[in-house]
């Protein structure tokens, strides 16, 4: 990789942030003005939401299973094996469900958005759309943004649910716990604050995935190599931002609700 001078590097970063902010601002503003491309919104919801169900279910389920398994030995040392349900539920709902689902969807959909929009950009299809009188941000970016935020919320709920179920399966079959006491402990440990935290995070993650994916896609340059580069960067940047924003939202929620 060639070295770039610090000022050129900084200028490129600032320019990238500027492009991202302008695109995101436009995409959000388009939600409140017509025309709306509802057909495209529903198509994206199907592709992003329903299409991601298998990986979300598998990820959530096995995360729940491994949480129960790994925590067993530590909890047993404290005589707290019966708290497994509480541990799995709290971890899944507050943290692992939102973050892991976000990362899975980022890998699947941010890359998809960046490559699809990037390919359109390098083959002049975006310019053709503008020449034919259609706003590409309104037609391509806004539906993806609305669909991702909406569907990630429900995918996270699904992930949490199967995670708790996975933990239950391991607890009952491998750790010898009682089925109903597992669910009783899980249910009791979930507070309003914890659940709110766990359901606010996917809104931010969804926003990041859609805006970062579309931003890299729409600014792709350099033919097929450029599309590959955009796709990789979209996944990397959105994944990192999901984790950073996760920390910030957790801190903010703790500040609002107190440490519950």
């Amino acid at each position: 990789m060639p070295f770039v001078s610090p000022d050129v590097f900084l200028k490129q970063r600032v320019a990238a942030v500027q492009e991202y902010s302008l695109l995101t601002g436009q995409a959000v503003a388009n939600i409140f003005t017509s025309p709306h491309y509802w057909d495209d919104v529903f198509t994206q919801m199907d592709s992003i939401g329903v299409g991601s169900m298998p990986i979300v279910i598998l990820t959530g389920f096995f995360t729940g299973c491994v949480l129960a398994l790994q925590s067993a030995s530590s909890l047993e040392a404290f005589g707290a094996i019966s708290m497994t349900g509480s541990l799995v539920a709290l971890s899944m709902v507050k943290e692992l469900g939102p973050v892991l689902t976000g990362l899975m969807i980022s890998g699947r959909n941010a890359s998809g958005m960046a490559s699809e929009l990037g390919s359109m950009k390098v083959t002049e299809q975006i310019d053709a759309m503008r020449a034919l009188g259609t706003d590409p941000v309104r037609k391509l970016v806004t539906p993806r943004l609305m669909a991702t935020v909406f569907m990630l919320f429900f995918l996270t709920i699904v992930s949490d649910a199967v995670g708790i179920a996975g933990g239950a399966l391991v607890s009952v079959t491998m750790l010898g716990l009682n089925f109903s006491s597992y669910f009783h402990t899980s249910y009791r440990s979930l507070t309003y604050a914890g659940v709110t935290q766990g359901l606010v995070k996917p809104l931010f993650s969804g926003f990041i995935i859609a805006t970062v994916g579309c931003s890299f896609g729409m600014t792709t340059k350099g033919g097929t190599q450029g599309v590959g580069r955009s796709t990789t960067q979209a996944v990397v940047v959105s994944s990192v931002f999901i984790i950073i924003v996760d920390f910030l939202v957790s801190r903010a929620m703790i500040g609002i609700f107190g440490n519950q």
Partner: protein
Amino acid sequence: MANSVTLDKTEPATAASSAEPVVVFEDVSIIFDIKPVLEKISFSVMPGETRIILGPAGCGKSVLMKLANGLLKPDTGSIKVFGQDVTKMSENDLYKLRSRIGMVFQESALFDSLSVEENVAYRLNEEKVPEDEAHKRVVESLRFVELEKAISKFPSELSGGMRRRVSIARALITKPDLILYDSPTGGLDPITSTTIVELIVKQRDVSHTTSLLITHRLQDAFTLATYQFNTETGHMEKLPHNGIVPSTRFLVLNEGRVVFDGSTEELVHSDDPWLKEYLS
């Protein structure tokens, strides 16, 4: 020269209504990073005129086309299309202006996830034209480019020449007042190129639409300048007595600057050594 005079007499209604130029570039420059791609470009295109833009590869011809359509904004100068300054218009206003402009892109730029019918009807669907009427107009447009049978195919199933013809059909469906052709025969074999040039000649001579055409193929440029469309035979034919179509004029660019701006006769008889070498 009799036939070219006849063409003069059947000039379009648009020209009769006003002598205002359709496209005016005034001192337009644009720089990408530090490299000036176009420098102080000035020219105008009158109604009914076909302006052929020639020049070596990389001299800024496609950039000029995108500037004319408002897809790019210049760093200096002004560009007036239909009397409106596109350099000062917002994107929303430009969408309204673009309903009068048809653009054919270098690589066709068809939407590959849509069928030929959906591609050609794209603008009509966006304007919520009823399905039956849109279908009728699509068939008419595809008939003009002789691709009626490909109506339900997808771009990936078409050859390069067929894709190019579909993109011409897409640009012409709304009967625009200005057509921009960006290298319509680029990358095509000679036979397919002739088919495309014949379509452009047909469009020029039947509808008398103002157009800008980029090409780096001199043979296509001179075909456009010396052939006319015969509606009886349905093919183009060379003008008798080495006649020249008077509505066809040239603009030659080199390294971002205008090197020649004038008629076919002036181009052929130019004394400029670079031009002579380029044309030989």
